[in-house]
């Protein structure tokens, strides 16, 4: 079952071709930019100009898969697309294109929630079928990204119950903006990771753990960001620069400790000690180690996306989630009716 998937939920124009859980071809516009495979693409082009590049990214993906270039859609069974959550105008471009392809080539259409993609990202296989990971439900799923911080029970295929999520900023946003306050540019998540590692990922200063006292599993990071701002303002700038790594490390620890403590609480509340984690922040090795240590306490397990490109926004993960939807005959009844849901929930 071969599925062409499109994800245009935010900045990336992402397209994939998948077969079951295997990725045949995967393209993300920003990667293509680096390779500069075709002319006429200006790197300074606005990030959200999906409309101008969607066709090129689709063609590139089909080319990578070595499908019959004259009739590539003969090799494709279904079209899938991200319906939300995301930026309305961006989602619309992908949905419009998916509808068009679905109708033109008479292929059934599958609508996927972007968060489902992140949940399934740990189960994506390369074209050779690796890594081999069998499903062993139920899982506790954690999504940590620039736009989301969500805890949910992944009970069975396509069956989720949200048990906690952020009420303001996402964890990735907290790191990115914290870095901005430290003068590290934006987004600064990866730089913070590096600086923290250089000083041993220790906590030199104590920043508040938002919402830890609350009994529920909701997250809040905006107060932490503000406490960093006040911390920096209260000290001399020279001091802040001298202690940059120590402050970055302390701040990152506060963000991650919040994630860990809430996840720990979720494990306790649900009794589920098998974790799957997705989203851009899980590219961070410190967080991976902290999560590994956490599940070790409970003799549990944790799965991360097996390849780096699967942590960020991509269409491969959408294709895998779509595969399970196709197996259950969950197709869009009338492609013309499909509309974006910018604040789509699971």
């Amino acid at each position, binding site marked *: 079952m071969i599925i062409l998937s499109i994800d245009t*939920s*935010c900045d990336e124009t992402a397209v994939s071709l998948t077969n079951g859980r295997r990725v045949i071809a995967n393209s993300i516009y920003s990667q293509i930019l680096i390779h500069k495979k075709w002319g006429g693409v200006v790197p*300074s082009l*606005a*990030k*959200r*100009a*999906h*409309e101008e590049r969607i066709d090129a990214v689709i063609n590139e993906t089909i080319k990578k898969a070595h499908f019959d270039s004259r009739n590539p859609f003969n090799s494709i069974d279904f079209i899938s697309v991200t319906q939300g*959550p*995301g*930026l*309305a*105008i*961006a989602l619309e471009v992908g949905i419009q294109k998916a509808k068009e392809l679905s109708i033109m080539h008479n292929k059934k259409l599958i609508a996927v929630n972007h968060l489902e993609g992140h949940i399934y990202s740990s189960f994506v296989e390369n074209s050779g079928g690796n890594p081999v990971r069998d499903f062993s439900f139920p899982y506790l799923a954690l999504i940590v*990204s*620039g*736009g989301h911080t969500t805890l949910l029970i992944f009970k069975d295929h396509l069956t989720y119950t949200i048990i906690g999520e*952020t*009420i*303001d*900023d*996402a964890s*990735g*946003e907290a790191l990115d*903006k914290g870095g*901005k*306050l430290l003068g590290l540019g*934006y987004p600064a998540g990866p730089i913070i990771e590096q600086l923290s590692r250089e000083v041993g990922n220790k906590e030199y200063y104590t920043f508040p753990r938002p919402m830890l006292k609350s009994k529920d599993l909701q997250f809040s990071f*905006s107060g932490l*960001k*503000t406490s*960093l*701002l*006040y911390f920096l*303002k209260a000290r001399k700038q020279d001091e802040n620069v001298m202690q940059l790594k120590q402050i970055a490390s302390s701040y990152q620890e506060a963000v991650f400790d919040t994630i860990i403590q809430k996840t720990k609480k979720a494990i306790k509340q649900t009794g589920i000690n098998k974790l799957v984690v997705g989203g851009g922040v899980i590219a961070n090795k410190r967080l991976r180690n902290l999560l590994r240590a956490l599940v070790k306490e409970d003799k549990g397990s944790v799965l991360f996306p097996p390849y780096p490109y699967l942590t960020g926004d991509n269409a491969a993960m959408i294709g895998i989630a779509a595969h399970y939807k196709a197996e259950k005959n969950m197709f869009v009844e009338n492609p013309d009716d499909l509309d974006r849901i*910018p*604040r789509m*929930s699971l």
Partner: protein
Amino acid sequence: MKIVPLGNDGIAQTCKVLQKGGVVVFPSDTVYGLLCDASNIEAVILLQKIKNRPAGKPISVFVADIAMMKRIVRVHTSQEKILNNILPGPYTVVLPSKQVLCRLLESEKGTLGIRIPSYQPITQLIHTFNHPVTATSANTSGHSPFYSATSFLKSLSQKKRELIDLVVDGGDLPKNKPSTVLDFSASHVKMLRRGDVSFKDAYTVNTSSEDETKKVAEKLLQEALQKQGEKPVVFVLKGEMGVGKTIFAKGIGKMLGIGSVISPTYVIYYEYTTNHPFITTFIHCDFFNIEEENEFEHLKLQSYFKKGTVLCFEWGEKAGALLFDLQKKAHVVVVSFTHKGLDKRELQIESYFS
């Protein structure tokens, strides 16, 4: 006629004259005013005589606070929130009279114009007198108001000068325009006269918690919805990181029945559909991630500039040309946030409505 300088003694003497039913020339936040006891019919008739004011033309009154206002006019709960927000300030608000003051002050429709000025001497006076006094400008009908007590007196005939018991001289007043008159007696707020703040009114609110910031947002939205008419409402939120812009947007969302508002930084904006009776769509934008102005072309925000939409722009200062476009198409409220301590924030609010 006696002339005394402004001060505690001037205020004490004014109270005495008012109690006896006399008329006093007194400075205000806008122009020199003619003051008399608003319940004393003879004093009001005297005032009309000095002003050459034809009977039937309403005369506004000064009150000390909203509580005193509610004793003399009918204030709806929703209006009270707005009034709390704009008063004290250079406004005359028109509301249905409870007919407790001299009826000569009312309009033909039975409404009364009320002022709570942001001017300490008047506030002190009304608190001391503990009763509303007239707030009409010290000029004869149809002539310009006066900014100095002496120039007003020069304009009067000897006969009229004798009708005035006391002049409290506050020197030359800054050339502020007369107050802006807002008619709250109709279902929609109408602007009857444009004072200094006509096109743009600005004031400052201090909050000391996230909840308070949310409440300001709720009040401002309520106020904007009364004024918006056929236009969308746009909140342009300015201020540095961590200052409470998303909190404010959550307050707007809450008011529209949306409990799930989260930071849209990553995606630039989230679109919410609401169950609100007049507002169908809430667009929550965050331009933090915008690097170049041409990126706005791809966001197509203009398509949301229509009736029934409320928009919030975090990092609104980055919107550039878009804002210029907006001033014509929308009711714009600019909220500039400043840190004043860990939980304390100052919100400077400028409202543009044409």
